[in-house]
């Protein structure tokens, strides 16, 4: 168990931005209407917000808009922000880090500590763990965690496993050093033996881009893609998550004596409805405690938990004290669960770009 307990860091605001462009799964040309309904029924995705993948709209643009609006609504002096972490698998460039670009674009001071962390579905929980760990000793008073992905970029059009599922979003979380903050507790988990369960094989240093990277091939299930697309072994991911997410959350609850009855909401990475429902039932959370937006926003990787908070819980976040359990899980294979609380935070309505 990799547990963490963080004192003195509070979430002060959360915002999210999605592309304006909506793709309706019922318009998907490679499946029959009956097959599409079956898919929607099980996986839960009816439509998704997706960027056009020509460089005109990147993850950093979505995160920029979310962060800019959040900082304005919080009325924070940007000169006081000293930490920016950008958690994403869809950076602007191979190098430099997108966090450096965003530091400048957001008008943050050159005294800012800024770096990227390439993680996917577990990214929000890991990002919250990293940023709050850095801030807990009190030198850095204000920080920004930006989590996002434009992962529809990696979906092969004829691969229904990914192209009906993946969607895009960018989120911003504002953190402040606060000695009165309620603690946050984390549990992290990694199983790199499952690296091939979700992988874009080519374009990194292990398999550099080559003309062969562009060649379409048919895999053992007859699905056509190139090695620049994401290959997903849905079964492996499903099994990994359905077994380990309940375990991780149970461990978290028992290690830190957290009373499940006090939890207002269980926030699950919007991986797919079938899987999330399985996890919810194993943990014995009520449906009313477990918000979903996968029907309208698909699977937005690391952005899905903060996006869920913005689209489903915005009014409550602004007006009430809330206690959450959240879990992000997927590519890596990587998993993180967190217990945290918010108290009347700033939460602008969903932004689009």
């Amino acid at each position, binding site marked *: 168990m990799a547990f963490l307990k963080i004192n003195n860091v509070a979430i002060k605001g959360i915002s999210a931005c999605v592309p304006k462009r909506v793709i309706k799964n019922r318009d998907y040309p490679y499946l029959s209407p009956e097959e599409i309904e*079956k898919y929607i029924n*099980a996986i839960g995705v009816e439509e998704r917000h997706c960027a056009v993948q020509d460089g005109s709209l990147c993850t950093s643009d979505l995160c920029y808009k979310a962060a800019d609006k959040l900082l304005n609504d919080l009325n924070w002096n940007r000169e006081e922000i000293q930490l920016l972490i950008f958690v994403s698998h869809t950076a602007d460039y191979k190098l430099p880090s997108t966090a450096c670009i965003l530091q400048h674009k957001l008008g943050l001071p050159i005294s800012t500590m800024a770096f990227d962390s390439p993680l996917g579905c577990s990214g929000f929980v890991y990002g919250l763990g990293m940023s709050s760990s850095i801030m807990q000793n009190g030198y850095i008073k204000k920080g920004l965690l930006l989590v996002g992905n434009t992962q529809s970029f990696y979906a092969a059009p004829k691969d229904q496993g990914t192209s009906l599922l993946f969607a895009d979003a960018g989120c911003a979380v504002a953190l402040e050093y606060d000695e009165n903050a309620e603690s946050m507790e984390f549990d992290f988990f990694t199983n790199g033996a499952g690296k091939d369960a979700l992988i874009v094989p080519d374009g990194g240093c292990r398999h550099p881009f080559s003309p062969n990277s562009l060649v379409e091939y048919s895999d053992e299930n007859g699905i056509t893609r190139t090695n620049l697309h994401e290959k997903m072994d849905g*079964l492996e991911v499903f*099994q990994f998550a359905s077994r380990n997410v309940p375990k991780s959350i149970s461990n978290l609850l028992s290690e830190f004596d957290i009373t499940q009855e006090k939890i207002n909401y269980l926030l699950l990475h919007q991986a797919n409805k079938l899987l999330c429902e399985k996890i919810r039932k194993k943990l014995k959370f009520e449906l009313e405690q477990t918000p979903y937006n996968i029907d309208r926003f698909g699977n937005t990787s690391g952005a899905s938990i903060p996006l869920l908070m913005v689209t489903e819980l915005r009014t409550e976040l602004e007006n009430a004290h809330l206690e959450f359990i959240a879990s992000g899980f997927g590519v890596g294979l990587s998993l993180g669960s967190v217990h945290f609380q918010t108290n009347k935070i700033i939460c602008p309505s969903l932004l689009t770009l």
Partner: protein
Amino acid sequence: MDFKEFSEKFAEAIEMEDASILTLETKFRELDDWSSLGALSVISMFEDDLDIELPVDAFKKAITLEDLFLLIK
């Protein structure tokens, strides 16, 4: 559980209307109603109704319904 009950659960999981055509020899991956989604549904069925955590490797190797049926024994 006998095979008849098992095959009915299997048919329900993959939303197949007529379970009566299913036999021990049925190559389930060749069924019209089979899809990658079906695999998730069947794994879920094993877990929810039968309380069995199916090893993914064994599931991937299974060809006939008998192979699957033996996994729950």
